[in-house]
């Protein structure tokens, strides 16, 4: 008995699922979205865990959201407002500090304080990275061709790609090759000498990976994060007014306006497959909905191994998805504060509180944090990327009070002996103890603390292994290999069943790119 019939059903109301739904609805399809939780957004949510204090529970900054999505879905009209993050402040153990400003010249001035050579190199580095980001950008917006196929369409895809790279010229091509294959530490060593600068820059290359800055493969993620652009201004990081949940809400609002239905607290049990075709979904409460198109915004493990039965899939693909690497490496701590952290290296309240605060004093520091995780422990002195949302958007906390969002790495999902309440608190303590070394007043200012381990992220958000990118961003899991060779074009072996989550190209971050490309594939190439 069917509870409803639609043109398309989207499983998962994360930002990618919502983007796919919005585009499909905009093209005139009757669309319904089923979200397991009571709130939309998946890992891009804002929740009032502690009364009066709004936490950007998981994802906390916006930089990679594709500008064409903002434009095409008219997200500003639906409430999206991105507030700039002006700086990244790195406190140092010797009571010095380093600040990188959104303003290039201001950063240059600050760098002169540390190294004149680095200040000079920063210009050329910025120029090159900008050029490379421009060179890579079109690739993020294309459906990857299939390397196993000899079809004219796929061969043309590779030819076009080849032409694109050849058009870059020697210097950029070689620089891109280096970025794709080097460690962020080695890459940055070629440019700079200030340890804190290199470590802080490299940190963006390790976010969400299970690698240290000296591991090859991390330089690429450096570029991934450089690609952030807001209204065309590359490299600018931002905070969505109302928290990251507001991004999801604005997309949902656009989808609704185009006629999409969105149901929360409606967990999907499985995709119904008949004769090799997806014909709808069955909810956990037993209701069945029919549609010729079913789109999964979940990660590849859930999309292929949980929502559908293995017998519908070729064994090669099952094997590929089983070995798809999706180890979580990070945790999150959210705090309600009675006062702002006061940093000994730069006392008082200042503009630094409106930017990011990065605990990444040196490569050695980051590597030691990684070493502990390699052997199954969480970092006792972790890398942290913090922001204080209430300093950017006062509505996030009651007057005079603050919220602080702390991204923490490394916290391995395969912790020796597994995570439990005691270890969660020990992990939270390690985070606070480390921050207290730089801002001694912090422990006394905490009104409430939320600690999320990779297991909590998996349990709450449904991210397998707590991996925030739906799968590690390693070279062998990118582009036409994401999530598996032959199935990187958003389709699946089950006709009518599509993938739209971050586990597909281009992967990771609140980009919406996967959802948009999936919709494009479903609609036959046109949005």
């Amino acid at each position: 008995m069917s509870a409803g019939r639609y043109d398309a059903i989207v499983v998962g109301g994360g930002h990618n699922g919502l983007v796919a739904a919005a585009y499909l609805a905009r093209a005139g399809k009757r669309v319904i979205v089923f979200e397991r939780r009571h709130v939309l957004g998946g890992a891009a949510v804002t929740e009032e865990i502690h009364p009066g204090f709004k936490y950007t529970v998981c994802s906390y900054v916006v930089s990679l959201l594709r500008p064409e999505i903002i434009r095409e879905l008219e997200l500003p009209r639906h409430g999206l407002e991105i507030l700039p993050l002006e700086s990244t402040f790195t406190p140092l153990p010797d009571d010095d500090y380093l600040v990188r400003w959104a303003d290039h010249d201001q950063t240059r001035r600050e760098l002169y304080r540390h190294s004149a050579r680095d200040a000079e190199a920063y210009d050329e580095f910025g120029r090159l990275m900008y050029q490379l980001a421009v060179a890579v950008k079109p690739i993020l917006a294309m459906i990857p061709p299939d390397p196993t196929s000899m079809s004219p369409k796929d061969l043309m895809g590779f030819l076009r790609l080849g032409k694109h790279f050849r058009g870059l010229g020697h210097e950029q091509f070689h620089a891109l090759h280096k970025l794709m294959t080097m460690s962020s530490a080695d890459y940055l060593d070629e440019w700079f000498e200030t340890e804190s600068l290199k470590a802080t820059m490299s940190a963006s290359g390790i976010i969400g990976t299970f690698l240290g800055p000296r591991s090859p493969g991390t330089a690429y993620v450096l570029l991934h994060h450089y690609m952030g652009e807001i209204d065309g201004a590359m490299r600018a990081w931002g905070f969505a007014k109302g928290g990251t949940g507001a991004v999801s809400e604005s997309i949902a609002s656009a989808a609704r306006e185009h006629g999409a239905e969105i149901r929360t607290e409606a967990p999907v049990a499985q995709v119904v497959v008949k004769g090799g075709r997806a014909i709808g979904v069955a909810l956990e409460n037993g209701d069945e909905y029919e549609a010729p198109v079913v789109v999964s915004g979940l990660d590849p493990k859930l999309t292929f191994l949980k929502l559908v039965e293995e017998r519908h899939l070729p064994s090669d693909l099952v094997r590929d998805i089983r070995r798809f690497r999706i180890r979580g490496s990070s945790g999150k701590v959210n705090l309600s504060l009675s006062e702002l952290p006061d940093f000994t290296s730069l006392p008082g309240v200042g503009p630094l509180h409106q930017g990011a605060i990065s605990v990444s004093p040196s490569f050695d520091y980051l590597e030691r944090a990684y070493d502990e995780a390699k052997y199954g422990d969480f970092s006792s002195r972790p890398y942290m990327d913090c922001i204080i949302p209430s300093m950017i958007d006062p509505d996030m906390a009651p007057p005079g009070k603050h919220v602080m969002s702390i991204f923490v790495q490394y916290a391995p999902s395969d912790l020796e002996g597994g995570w439990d309440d005691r270890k969660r608190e020990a992990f939270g303590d390690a985070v606070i103890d480390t921050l207290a070394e730089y801002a001694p007043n912090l422990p006394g200012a905490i009104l409430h603390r939320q600690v999320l381990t990779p297991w909590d992220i998996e349990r709450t958000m449904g991210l397998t292994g707590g991996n925030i990118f739906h799968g590690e961003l390693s070279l062998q899991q990118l582009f036409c290999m994401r999530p598996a060779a032959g199935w990187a074009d958003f389709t699946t072996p089950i006709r009518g069943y599509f993938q739209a989550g971050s586990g597909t190209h281009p992967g990771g971050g609140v980009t919406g790119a996967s959802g948009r490309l999936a919709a494009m594939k479903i609609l036959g190439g046109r949005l």
Partner: protein
Amino acid sequence: MSAHFDTIVIGGGHNGLVTAAYLAKGGQRVLVLEGRDVVGGAAATEEIFPGYRVDTGAHRIGGFSKRIVSDLGLAGRFELLPADPPTFAPVEEGPPLTLWADPVRTAEEIRTHSTADADAWPAFVKLVSDAAGFLESAWHATPPDITGTDVRDLWSSASLGHRLRRLGKRQMVEVMRILPMSMYELLEEWFESDVLRGTLAASAVQGLCQGPMGGGTVYLFLHHHVGAPSGVIRPTVRVRGGVGRLSEALATRCRELGAEVRTGAVVDRVVVEDGSARGVVLADGSEIRATRIASSLDPQTTLFGLLDPAYLDPAVARKVENIRYRGVTAKVHFALSGLPDFACRTGSGPHLEGAISIGPSLEYVERAYDAVKYGAVSAEPCLELSIPSLVDPDVAPEGRHLASVVMQYAPYALREGAWDEAARKALGDLVARTITRYAPNFESLIVDRMVLTPADLESRFGLTEGNVYHGEMTLDQLLFMRPIPGASRYRAPIEGLWLCGSGAHPGGGVTGVPGANAAREMLRGR
């Protein structure tokens, strides 16, 4: 001023000699200048202990190209000794592991550790052999210029693509997929046995400043399997009488083909006139002219050590400066009064004939690497012992044995202290002590020993920072990126100067391929 040559080859290492032989065969007047008193460079055999013939640098030559042997008529001039088993891995507890040349026998051996691993072994061996076969084609090709439009480049890229497709759809994707991976990721997919994972991982990081969890380490593992007989994992092939016999055979062949090979001739600098390399000046001040110069020394030694920096474009100089070397291996040679007796497999036997690899788990190897990140020597190092005297009695006096050990990780740049006599002694003691944990009689057998730290490898063999490959074998320093982007086709950034050593594609190991490829390009360039 003396006689004029078509080509002067700087460095009589195996690659320099291969280049010289090909050029002489191609009709050129060739002069090889070797600074040491023996030819071979790091592939030399020396009597460092009385009555012993010791391969002081390289001792395994699995990848020496058969094509070169046949092109240069070297067959029968040296004898290869492939070990079977190629690798034995002792452990402190539980059964050890032996990798045999026969994969079926190896699989049975692995079964004592894990049934699943034994079942997976044949498919793993096939994958390694397919991937290595593909790499072999790439080895012999001059790296294509991706951004260029030369027909030759397009053809060479296309034929490599075709070679890859011949593996079949599934295996093609698989080979491409594993190339950038870390050994840890690969082994997680295949095996569960600690000692098997450790032993394979140890081979993937040899000479590399990375642990098996570092991306790109699968590549180096495959590199070591190019040219190996199908089915053999971790091949161990020696030369009877020492690896120096190979170098001597090459030098002899050069002379027969009309080339002149001089030892004890240290090149001080390359003479550049009107932007072109025109000759060399020796340490004794004499100058020798030639139409072109080929250097088999590593790229930094060649371009910074032998050239006036004023001749290099600053942008090019920066690329050369950025070549990563970071040697992490030390070599320790022991003269022994008898054979080591391993606790996990007592007595003598074939298990001592190949490489004896101490790296009992992947985590052990990774932990050994951790130290070097902070500029320290591994407290529990990875070791690879070779006892050539067991299969080749000529290399040690009657009743005595020779054990050569590759030790990893020892950083070239120590953060605390320097590579002085005390540090060298501590390193030798550490190696002896570590082996003794597995073979309790080892320390009591030592008659003499020689420790070569990364700093010693640099001063003795001219290997910059002690890197045995003339530059790290990482994905960003391979193919068209080796030795530096824009100069990957054996032409140095100075007209008339060529690079023919391991710093050029396809890189390190006693393969002869960089030397052969360089000669081909030089003969074509005329």
